[in-house]
Each structure stands twice: as C-alpha cells, then as structure tokens.
C-alpha cells in the first residue's frame, strides 16, 4: 500500500471511530423525548453521556482536521459543496453541546424543555445529515472539473441519500439505546432494552434495503466484484448486526454494544471500500472525481502526519479507554447528586 492508500483507510477509520463513540450519545439525544418519562430519567440520560460525550466529539474534529491535512482538495471541495448540510450539522452540535452545561443551571421546567429540544434536534441533525452526506458520497455528487458544486441542499435529499440518513439515524439510535440500557437502572433500563430490540428489527430491514439500493444507485460493488474476498467485510458487518440481537437476547449488554460499534464501523468501511481510491465521485463526469491520489497532500506532509497519527492515535485511544473504564458503572443517585453533574 502506498501513502495515499494508507491515508485513505486511516481517514475512513477516523470517521468510523467518530460514529462508534459519539454515535451512542447522539442516539441517546434522539431517543430522549421518547423514552424519558420524568425529570429523573432525563437526568440519567444526560449523565450517561456526561463524562464522555465531549471526548467523543473530538473524533469529528480530528476527522475534519485530518481531511484538511491529508486531503486538502477533498476538504475544500467536499465542505464547500455540502455547505448548507454541514452548517446544519455544526449548529446542531453547538446547541447540543451547550445543552449539557446549561440545562441544569436554572430550576424551571420551561428552561429545561428548551434545552431538551436543543438536545434532540442537535442530535438528530448530525445523525441524519451525516448519513445523507455519506450516502451521497457513495452515490456521487454533481461537482464539475473546477471542483464547483452544481446542485443545492435538495440535490442531496434524493431517495438513496435519505435512505442513508435513516440508516445512520437507526444505527446511532440502537447504539444509544444499548448504552442507556447499560447505564440505567430499573424501569428505564428495561425500557431501553425493549426499545433497542424494537429499533434493531427496523434497522435490519433498512440495512438490507440499503445494501440492495446500493447496487442500483451506486457502483460500489464493482470493487467487491473485482476482489470477491472483500465481501468478507460485508459479512463481518452483517454478522455484527445479527450479533447485536443475539447478545441482547442473552442480556449481554456490553457485547451487544460492542457488536453495534462494529456494525457502525462496518457501515462506514462498506461504502469506501467500494469507492476506493475515489473519495468524492462526481456524478457529472468520472474524470472530475476526487481520489486519494489527486486530492492528497504532498508526500512529505503525508509522511509527517502518518508518523504523528501512529504516535498520537494509540495514546488517545489509551486514555480515552481509561476514561470509559472509569465511568463504566451505572448512573446512580450518587452520580446525580454531584455538584457539577448535568
């Protein structure tokens, strides 16, 4: 593998880790209005994400920064093409981030309702729109030879794109329900498990539909056909998805959650393995497509960044794992009584 190819897959991995980690707190944010029955249950949800959401979100910043560093042309064309969608994602993340901090600071039901609304919308928008964006990348977007986008926000809202949005929404919702089941006690715990099971069934149906739709709307199966061994990745993803339900049935919640994380990672890799080496196909003319080779940084930058990534990513994973381990327990009365708890 050459430098560009290594970076291509490292780049996919960063996005995958973002959805695997932040996915569960986005998911809980989306489920918040549907599953919490009272103020205490809402606080359990906020504090189940509490110590970890901020670190999770940095994977997105890192994925963004690495796109800029390793594939500046892709960064420029993709982010300016997806302008409105990306702005909506950013505003979602902004109002969501402050909701954690602001919500508990004033004792008033109206105040709390406002921030609950922000939490819901701020979780829904990134989950759906990033899904829509990824599906459109798999499918190709109308960029011309100058890297100028010849469409609008609504160009992205085609059936396949929307299906991608629904798929991502369901992936993070299941992920979030599982996390809540792990963190909550009593009735909320039971309901989270039931919800995870219900959502899983819908997810399975949508995932099958997406796999089929990809054959019609995209050409990502070409790489798979050329190297049939690659189908193993799809197989692993499907097995992981089935594993979620199997572990749920056995009450092995952590395993179900990890299976769900693998499913999410698989969904990210699935499309990009099919695209490789393309990173942003043009639907106007395949010659306008951005690839790992025509969009990348200079070899020197790629080398330096690879060295840094190989040092820092493992270190980050190490101390993030330490933080996860520190807060693996249930959200208890004691957690909720902390002065600075959410």
């Amino acid at each position, binding site marked *: 593998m050459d430098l560009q190819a290594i970076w291509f897959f490292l780049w996919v991995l960063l996005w995958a880790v973002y959805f695997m980690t932040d996915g569960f707190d986005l998911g809980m944010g989306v489920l918040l209005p549907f599953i919490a029955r009272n103020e205490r249950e809402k606080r359990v949800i906020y504090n189940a994400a509490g*110590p970890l959401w901020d670190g999770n979100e940095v994977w997105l910043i890192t994925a963004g920064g690495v796109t800029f560093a390793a594939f500046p042309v892709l960064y420029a064309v993709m982010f300016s093409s997806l302008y409105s969608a990306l702005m909506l994602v950013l505003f979602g993340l902004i109002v969501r981030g402050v909701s954690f901090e602001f919500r508990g600071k004033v004792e008033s039901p109206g105040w709390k309702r406002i921030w609950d609304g922000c939490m819901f919308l701020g979780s829904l928008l990134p989950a759906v729109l990033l899904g829509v964006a990824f599906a459109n990348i798999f499918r190709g977007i109308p960029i011309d030879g100058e890297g100028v986008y010849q469409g609008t926000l609504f160009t992205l809202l085609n059936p396949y794109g929307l299906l991608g949005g629904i798929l991502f929404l369901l992936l993070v919702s299941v992920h979030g329900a599982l996390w809540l089941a792990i963190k909550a006690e009593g009735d909320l715990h039971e309901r989270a498990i039931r919800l995870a099971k219900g959502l899983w069934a819908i997810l399975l149906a949508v995932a099958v539909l997406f796999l089929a739709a990809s054959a019609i709307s995209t050409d990502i199966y070409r790489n798979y056909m050329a190297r049939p061994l690659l189908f193993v990745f799809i197989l692993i993803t499907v097995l992981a998805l089935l594993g979620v339900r199997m572990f749920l049935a056995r009450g092995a919640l952590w395993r179900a959650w990890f299976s769900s994380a693998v499913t999410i990672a698989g969904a990210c890799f699935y499309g990009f393995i099919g695209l490789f080496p393309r990173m942003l196909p043009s639907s106007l003319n395949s010659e306008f497509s951005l690839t790992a080779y025509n969009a990348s940084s200079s070899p020197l930058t790629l080398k330096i960044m690879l060295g840094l990534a190989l040092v820092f990513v493992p270190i980050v994973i190490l101390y993030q794992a330490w933080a996860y381990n520190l807060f693996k327990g249930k959200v208890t009365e004691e957690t909720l009584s902390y002065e600075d708890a959410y």
Partner: protein
Amino acid sequence: MDVLLLSRLQFAAATAFHFLFVPLTLGLSVLIAVMETRYVQTGEEIHLKMTRFWGKVFLINFAMGVVTGITLEFQFGTNWSRYSEFMGDIFGSLLAIEALGFFFLESILIGVWIFGWNKISKRTHALVMWLIAFASTGSAVWILTANAWMQHPVGYVIRNGRAELESFADVALNKFAILMFFHTVAAAYVLSAFFVMGVSAYHLLKNRHVAFFMKSFRMALVLGLIFSFFLVVEGHLHGSDLAKTQPTKLAAMESHWETTRRAPIYLFSFPDEQNERNMVQIGPIPGLLSLLAFHSTEAEVKGLKDFPPDERPPVFIVSASFKLMVALGFYFALATLVGFILRNRLPEKRWYLRIMLYSIPLPYIAAELGWTLAEVGRQPWIVYGLMKTADAVSPIAVSQVALSLTAFLLVYGVLGAVAYYLIIQHVGKGPA
C-alpha cells in the same frame, strides 16, 4: 453583498465570539489548578471551595469555547475552499496536530474532572486540571502557529500550483508564532486575572466571604501583575518584529505614510486614506518609531506610500485598534501595580475595588482589538504576500452564506447572552 464580504463577516463574527471564551479558559485553568493543588497540599476547606466556585465558571466558559471552536475548523473548507486547496498541505496539518495532540486531552479530561471527584484520588484529580491547563495551552500553540503562518509564511515551496511543505521545523518554530503565542497567552492570563479580581472586588465591596475573596484576589493579582508587565515588553518585541515581517501592518498601525529616517510616533493622529496623509497629527516624538522598530532613532521606516494602494490594509481600523490596545495594556500594568501596593489593605480601598470591578470587560476589549489588528492588519492578504483574501473564497451561492451568517449571529447572540447570564448569576451569588 457578495460571498467574499459575507464570508469575511462570518469568519470575523465566529472568531471574535470564540475568543470571548478562550482566554478565560487558558488562564482560569491555571488558577484553578493552583487552588486545587493547595487543597491537596493543605487539606484546607477554603481551597476546595475556591476550586469549586471558580470551577463552575470555568465549565460554562469551557463549553462555550468548545462549541464555538468546532465551527472555525470547518469554515476553512466551507467558506475558504480556494485557500484550503492552496494551503492545506501546511495549514491543515497544524489543525490536525492540535486536535490529535491536545484538544483530545482537554476534552476527555474535562469529563473526568467534572465526574471524577469520588472516582480518582485527590492528587490525580488536581493533576487532571493541570493537564487540562497544559492541553489548552498546547492547543493555543498549534492554532497560533497556524495563524502565524498566514501572517508570515515560512518553510514552504510553491509546487503543483500550491504551497507545499518543505520544512516542518521551520513552520513549527516560526519566530512569528512564538511571539504570537507568548503575546496571546500572556493576554489570556491578564484577562483571567482581571476577571477573578473583578468578581472578588464585587464581593469585597459587599463585605461578603472576605477571606475567600481576599485569597482569590491576591492569587489573581500575582498572575495579573507578572503578565501585564511581561505583556508590555513582549508586545514591543512582537511589534518591532513586524518591521521585518509585515511592514504594511506596522506602517498602518502608526498611520505612517512617508518613508523616512527618524520616523516619529504621534500622540494622536487620524488618517485620511483618500489623500494618503493624516488629517490630524499632534505631538510628534521624533525618532521613536524608528527606535521601537529597529532599535535606532536613525533607522529608516517604510511608509504606506511605498506600497501599492491595493496592498495596504485599512489604516484607520488598524491604527485605532493598535493604539487602544496599547493604552489598555499600560492601564493593566498600572492597575495591577497599584493593587500590589494596596494588597494588604484591599477591603478598605473601596475606590480601587470599584475600579477593578468595572475593569472586567477591559481585557476582553483589548484581546478583541489585538485580533482585529492582527487580522485586519494583514489585509488584503489571507496569507501575507502569497495569497489575497479575495482569491481564497469558496465558489458558493451568496444566499447560503447570507443565511448561515444570519444563523450565526442569532444563535451566537442567544447563547452568548445565556452563557454570560449564567456566569454572572453564579459569580454574583458567591460560594455556597
């Protein structure tokens, strides 16, 4: 209104707003780390109380800093795609290093600090705040290195129609970046010191929690005194470096039109950009500009007329921001010096406490003026001497940018009001 102007306004609004929160994060984290360390060392309850009280301000402020920082990284791609394509090879890596090496550390540890009181030892908990302070300072290093590269590009070669990295060491050790870093961090410490002193003064004026706020005040006073004097000296070095690196910015700062030896500084001047002269200029100090810029009263300082009009920054904004910032800088040194003299008699010196209470906004204003000077003073370049701002903007629809700019102003306006409302409410109540 075109995409260029709207994008510039949007970036200006987003960065100016972001920087309302960043300096307090940088300085308060250090103060809180000291407080918590004292608590670990002495076991005295008052230090724990201080850690908690100032910690709550820190957390609200930190959250705002984080959420407003995210948008900045993405705006280079959304609004400045031509810039990103041209400079990404160098500029992008600096942002990526910031995220990977430092932003991760602070963001993960902030959760540990909030929720870890009973899960880790007291010693580790204090260490976590030190690491948060270290990481936010490290973030500043790389973000400022990135900005310094736009101010004074080094270590690159133009190849394949873009700027490509030639020497990472040159980029990372850019002298401009080092000067900028010390300037920004010192300013952040001064701002945080004035914040803590101002809030403490408010309570001392009301004779509430006197021991608590005396301790807080004096701790902040030490930080403020050291760094406001440091800032005066460092600011001079930073400014005189501009004579070599950004002569147009320096000339605009002093509204200096003609290239001369023994260049003066005027106590007051008002530029007339149309006619390339000053409308008013009063109180010349001969040779002072030459002296400050080149350490010799005889040195020649280039005037604005030596540069083509389309390569000059807007003179009035630049010179006004500069002069006001410098005046405030001297005020901070004076105010903290007076505070040092009065340090044992603070509760009686009500006039001084009142002055310090009303001084809270001043370092914020100075910091924003500093950025105005840095960024507007660089115009019309986005990368000094290399790429013009007008050539850097994305090929996007004007309606999109108009809409997002409106949304920024609305959302930031509301969130800023809420954040300061919560902060003021909390500090006004005093420690529990």
